[in-house]
């Protein structure tokens, strides 16, 4: 009883958490690329 609500709520919660972690990951890779570019520029 009420399994569809439970699965729905937990799915939404995990999707939101992982999306935020993905956003953080993208920020990190963008910074890494920028640092690599600056290093190349130094050379």
């Amino acid at each position, binding site marked *: 009883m009420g399994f569809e*609500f439970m699965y729905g709520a*937990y799915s939404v919660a995990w999707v939101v958490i992982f999306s935020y972690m993905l956003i953080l990951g993208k920020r990190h890779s963008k910074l890494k690329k920028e640092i690599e570019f*600056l290093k190349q520029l130094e050379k």
Partner: protein
Amino acid sequence: MSMNLEREKAVLHGTQVAEKKSIDMSKILFGATVISMLVALYFIFIFAAEEVTMGAAQKIFYFHVSSAWLAFMAFFVTFVFSILFLVKRKRIFDTYAYISAEIGVVFTIIVLTTGPIWAKSSWNTWWVWEPRLITTLILFFIYIAYIMIRQMDGVWDKKARLAAVFGIIGFADVPIVFFAIRWWQTKFHPIVFGEGPSQKGGGIEGTMLVALFVSLAAFTILYSYLLHKGVSFEKMKLKVERYKEKLREDLEK
């Protein structure tokens, strides 16, 4: 090459060393988050008793309440660091306030989405205009506005000051959200702990209480992981920007 650029270059190389240290800390926090989340899921789905009337849908409660707790804690951290920023004017305080507000907004989204799912199963409606729901929605919009201030064009210092004032004033809504069901008559949100004007604290069954506390602990660890990660990226970003600025200045000379 100017002395300034040399210094910034050293800082940029220092970023990589700092990043290594930060990665170690991140790994520890990530491991702790994964373990605590798995333990919390065990307590929620296996250890805690199933509620007789609502059945499985009652288990939404653990993530819903924990997300609300995390959001409140995040906004409190924003409040504290906003005050510290206005007093000391150090950029790191502003960074902590900003990242914490961002995390708070993310978890308010979880509160505002899992809440209606609970409402549909329990009250047979997705949304009711009752004090706690309204004040939570206002809280969400306040911090969305806070983030929008941060995205504005303009001088960093001005934006940070404005955001800090917003972060301090916005926090006033947090106790209102918490006490809403105690101050105003409401038949929807039950008071689990303590007593209120509408009903007496219903209390919570022993195993459910344990599951709730384990879940709260897991979310607190998740918060520290996200905060640490977010702040370290912001610090890195700042160093890269400073270096680029100096490089530009040096090239113009």
